[in-house]
């Protein structure tokens, strides 16, 4: 068997990615079943959410236990502005920026303290918002009748697709940049990174801001997509922990891992028809624990080992 050169395999990769994108773009034209498109919407939503969590959790190594706060803040902001008559895109942008503002509010003090403060701080923030929004906005948020009359699924699907590609692309650009190198250096060894001129605080905040921005955008897309939901829903802890589990299962700190994790997770959930919250937790919680214990590095880690072994065989 002849071996492929790095340029060749890179070209094959690019062709594969373009093909995949083409299929995703054509999907709503070919498949007319709403339930399939809805499933695809959820896959894309979680690809974005997991990839955005991974920007902070995977590349900078900071454990965010309150990503739902950013998703929810994006959703709430976008929904309010859009329903009040703003255009969609400025509403989405505003949602992302509100999430960033919230992130910096918690990140600046928590990163200064270091240690577990960030994990606890983000968890507390998201739970406080969950309860507060539940109390202040107890009514269901439904699309007005005139919007419902013209509701179309395809534009929603394309918005999610665009945000997923945008999030993945941003992550890829980040880890191939000077900034990304600094972020990963801080993750690996903070003292050494600082001794070489990398400001740990600044780099963590950049990763956090990016992560929150894309989390907020994803929430905004959800607000545009959903016909009627309680605003509290988008602040629920399951958004955080589902995304986190997908990243661990797929492979933290990689570009592809969160994508695979999200696809696997959403489709498995659909196949098992796990609509009951408890079942969902039992199945995915167990899976998560197994991966953490036996497959550190997730699916991508396993894949890495297999391809290394194959390369040795040749």
């Amino acid at each position: 068997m002849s071996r492929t050169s790095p340029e060749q395999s890179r070209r094959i990769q690019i062709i594969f990615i373009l093909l995949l994108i083409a299929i995703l773009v054509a999907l709503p034209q070919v498949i007319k079943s709403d339930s399939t498109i809805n499933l695809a919407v959820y896959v894309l939503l979680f690809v974005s959410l997991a990839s955005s969590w991974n920007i902070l959790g995977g590349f900078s190594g900071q454990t965010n236990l309150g990503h739902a706060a950013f998703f929810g803040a994006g959703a709430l902001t976008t929904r309010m502005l859009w329903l009040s008559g703003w255009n969609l895109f400025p509403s989405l942008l505003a949602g992302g920026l509100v999430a960033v503002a919230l992130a910096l509010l918690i990140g600046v003090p928590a990163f200064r303290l270091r240690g577990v403060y960030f994990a606890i701080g983000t968890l507390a923030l998201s739970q406080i918002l969950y309860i507060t929004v539940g109390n202040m906005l107890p009514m269901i948020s439904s699309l007005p009748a005139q919007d419902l009359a013209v509701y179309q699924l395809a534009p929603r699907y394309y918005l999610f697709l665009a945000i997923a590609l945008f999030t993945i692309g941003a992550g890829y650009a980040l880890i191939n940049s000077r900034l990304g190198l600094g972020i990963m250096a801080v993750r690996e060894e903070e003292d050494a990174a600082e001794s070489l001129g990398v400001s740990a605080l600044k780099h963590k905040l950049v990763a956090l801001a990016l992560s929150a921005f894309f989390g907020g955008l994803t929430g905004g897309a959800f607000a545009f997509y959903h016909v009627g939901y309680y605003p509290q829903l988008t602040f629920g802890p399951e958004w955080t922990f589902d995304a986190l589990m997908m990243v661990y299962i797929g492979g933290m700190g990689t570009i592809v891992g969160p994508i695979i994790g999200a696809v696997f997770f959403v489709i498995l959930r659909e196949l098992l028809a796990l609509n009951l919250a408890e079942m969902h937790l039992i199945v995915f919680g167990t899976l998560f624990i197994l991966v953490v214990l036996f497959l550190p590095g997730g699916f991508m880690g396993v894949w890495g080992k297999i391809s290394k072994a194959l390369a040795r065989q040749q």
Partner: protein
Amino acid sequence: MPFLQVEGLCKSFGGLKAVNNVTFDVAEGQIIGLIGPNGSGKTTTLNLLTGFLKPTAGAVTFKGENIIGRPRSQMCPKGIARTFQIVKPFLGLTALENVMVGKVYGRDSAKSLKAAAEESREALTRVGLADKARMLAKDLTLMQRKRLELARALAAKPQLLLLDELMAGLNPKEADDACALIQQIRQSKITILMVEHIVKAICALSDRIVVLNMGEKIAEGTPDEIICNPQVIDVYLGRAHA
């Protein structure tokens, strides 16, 4: 004006005076050895010079500028790089990426990642790790990690390099290699402050030696003066060296 001026430097941890009123100067281009028994305050001194610790009292000026109180991440861009007594590699990054961090964030940083990668390859070659560029730091041996740490610090183009027991844990052959490496670095006009327990090596390399004992400076001078100094023999070198 001295290149590096340390004046009345003090650091207490609770009641313990780890560094007590230490004063010395370093001239540009010199190699200064910093020796002393275990716990005498050598590493603490390096930590104070690099912003890893804030002194209780004292002043440090580098090229005429007071550097006390500056965030530690600003030291390297100013021209001060260091290694750690217990090496701190970026374990999950490749050897090349480890060095690139120094190139990208250090003094006079590389213009692009690509340029940084090329220059970092040269730095790896200089310390004899050219063939390890794509290996993860966690797969390197201790000696290789020490070399990597040195390459990383050198990649930051320091004017002052602080080395904390670079040779500890190396066998005699490896220590000789490390000596040769330091001689090479001196050729490139980098001023070095090095902490080392191997007396033979430190005497061969240093222009001057500062001796600490229980946080205080007890002697300073040329290697010849230091190995004959009765107080140094008494607290550190022992009779065997005399």
